[in-house]
């Protein structure tokens, strides 16, 4: 081997710049529109800033103010209630719909489309449609309830009912994704398990409880985690259907952030609330993964 050959062999392989270019299409927007705002927002939480002028460093003042702001407490409580209603709602109805289609009951083909269709409609449209459906005086829901003797329920105009009304629309909207995931998981279950259950004389309920649900645990965990994160970030339905009212009964954390930041220009304070929500989501995700999936 000559000296020239040796030196070229020791040289590092040339960099394939084309690879970096392909990666850049994702990386640059991700850094610019996800990572940078996250870092900026985290920094902003320690400042007082109203867009015009420079942010003023105030340390932990925003977090301290949050502790004394009763509306923050209300927003977090409401958000937790959304999660408590929506997550089980989506799990139960998503699974029920998936079982219906999987069992090939009547009109299963049509039902497959119908169950998924709300998921492809925008949240704003869902909110508007449900605002009309749940109208106290002229809504279809109260109309049909009236036919069976139930008096009109103030779904969106009473502080007692409004959060539940918004949750109904949210469950309907989010159902589609859970349905698809459950259906895919059901179709992947080995047929032998069903046959073995039949041989052992298991009833339908026993088959569901002792065979199907344990097998679906990983999917249930995933749907629950995704749905919980989605519920903690609820905004569009609240904005469209109730504007956070009445009396703050439907104000979620993200909606409160919107009010503090976009409507009142307290961007530092809104960022502090956002960081708190971020921490909450992080903890909840960890807890759910730990206690639901890995058990």
């Amino acid at each position, binding site marked *: 081997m000559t000296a020239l050959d040796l030196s070229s062999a020791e040289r590092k392989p040339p960099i394939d710049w084309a690879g970096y270019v392909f990666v850049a299409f994702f990386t640059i927007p991700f850094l610019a529109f996800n990572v940078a705002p996250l870092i900026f927002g985290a920094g902003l939480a320690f400042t007082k800033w109203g867009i015009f002028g420079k942010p003023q460093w105030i340390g932990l003042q925003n977090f301290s103010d949050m502790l004394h702001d009763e509306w923050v407490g209300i927003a977090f409580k409401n958000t937790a209630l959304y999660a408590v209603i929506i997550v089980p709602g989506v799990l139960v109805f998503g699974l029920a719909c998936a079982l219906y289609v999987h069992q090939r009951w009547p009109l299963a083909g049509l039902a497959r489309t119908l169950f998924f269709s709300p998921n492809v409609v925008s949240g704003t449209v869902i909110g508007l449609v449900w605002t009309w459906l749940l109208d106290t005086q002229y809504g279809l829901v109260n109309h049909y309830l009236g036919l069976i003797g139930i008096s009109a329920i103030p779904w969106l*105009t009473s502080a007692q009912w409004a959060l539940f009304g918004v949750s109904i629309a949210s469950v309907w909207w989010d159902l589609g994704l859970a349905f698809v995931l459950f259906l895919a998981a059901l179709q992947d279950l080995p047929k032998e398990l069903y046959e073995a259950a039949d041989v052992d004389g298991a009833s339908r309920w026993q088959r569901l409880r002792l065979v199907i649900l344990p097998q679906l645990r990983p999917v249930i965990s995933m749907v629950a985690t995704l749905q919980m994160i989605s519920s903690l970030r609820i905004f569009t339905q609240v904005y469209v259907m109730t*504007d956070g009212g009445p009396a703050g009964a439907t104000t979620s954390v993200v909606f409160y952030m919107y009010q503090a930041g976009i409507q009142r220009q307290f961007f530092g304070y809104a960022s502090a609330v956002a960081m708190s929500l971020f921490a909450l989501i992080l903890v909840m995700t960890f807890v759910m993964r730990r206690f639901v999936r890995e058990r």
Partner: protein
Amino acid sequence: MSKTRKMSRRQFAKLAGKSALVATAAATFPAPFVKGAEPITLTHWSWLSASDAEVWGKMIDAFNAANTDIQLKLELVPDDQYDTKLLAAAAAGQAPDFGWGTAGQRAQWAKDGVIIPLDDLATKVGLDLSDFSAQPMQKARYPKYDNKLFMIPMDLMSLQPEVNLDHVKEAGLDPEKFPTDGDGLLEWAKAMTKRDGDKVTRSGIMMTGSGVQPTVTWGIVARQMGFLRASDDLKTACVNPDAGKAAMQWILDLFDKLKVSTRDVTNRYKAFGTGQGSIFWTGPWTLNGYVQQKLNFRTYLFPKIGQELHTYFEMGGMELYVQSDTSRYEASMKAVKWLSDNGFLWTTQGRGASPRLSTLARPDYKTSGHDWSVRGAFVDGMAFATEGEIPVLAGPDFTIYAGDNFLAKTLETVWAGQKSIDTAMSEIQAKWQSDLDAG
């Protein structure tokens, strides 16, 4: 003999650099406004979105048709995004030239220099400030900021009751004898309310369970009963809190005791337009829409529910935003002057009463635009329209025409039965006092 001159790479780079510099400078520093030069295009932002927006569009079109040296580009920005977008644009040096504002809500902007003082500019372009009535000129200034003028008033608005005449007839009431006091008002409301069992299906007095309507009603009734949000010297909050509490009780009684209103209405404008309510106090911005849909209604003067007659006051006007190119201010002020001088259409068909004495004095002022039976109360009622903004930094927290500020959110808890009247008043008093102390 032809002589070919060759250019070195260094020379080429220098030339290219200079060309780029000139091009950049030309784009960055547009030519100042000079009469006789190319027409200057001014950007005008508006948040008008009710039926009055159509009339404002006509005003802008008329301006562009009448002026060759200045052209206006109207951009609509939703009301709830206006402030944030404007601040972001101003921070980026891209603020529109001028736009709509509500008097008394901009103390922070005046302090930060987002809006500019207009006294000198008005004089420079020949806008006759002495032609404006006294109240609007006072409301367009900020006493805490050298009492400078920060707005050119365009319209004066008040809240007055619009009444569905079909309901009046159905109830056997005389439309010529609309009540002038609280007791009479409640009698009319009872007569026009419809119920299904215990449930109100048509409100005698149009109300909502949350948002603007109960908040502004409280503001008006409380003032009539003797409550002041802030003392005249802006040092003491909540003067006569008992009157404020009595006003809260008055509203609760509409829902729960007298049952002439329901909390179940979500969109008050639509509800009144579709006959779900009989008496609806609102502003002149609704006229165009209800007239166009041929609603059979009439507007009356607000009755005296408490000891003194007051109603909500709002003044809309033009404000100029900070520019890096200060030569644009004069062009903007000329445009504003034209819109003010030609505001007859706006204050006869658009909304509100005119702030210009010369317009009010025109013999055709009462006969032009919408019929006086629906428009007149909004003009005559300005005499007792006093409840406007509190011109301090935290002014928006004091606003009574609001659906999601501190006041509205606190009062909502009373309407929903979550807080007692006493607790709510204590909270309002504490917050407002700290706001006033902050300046």
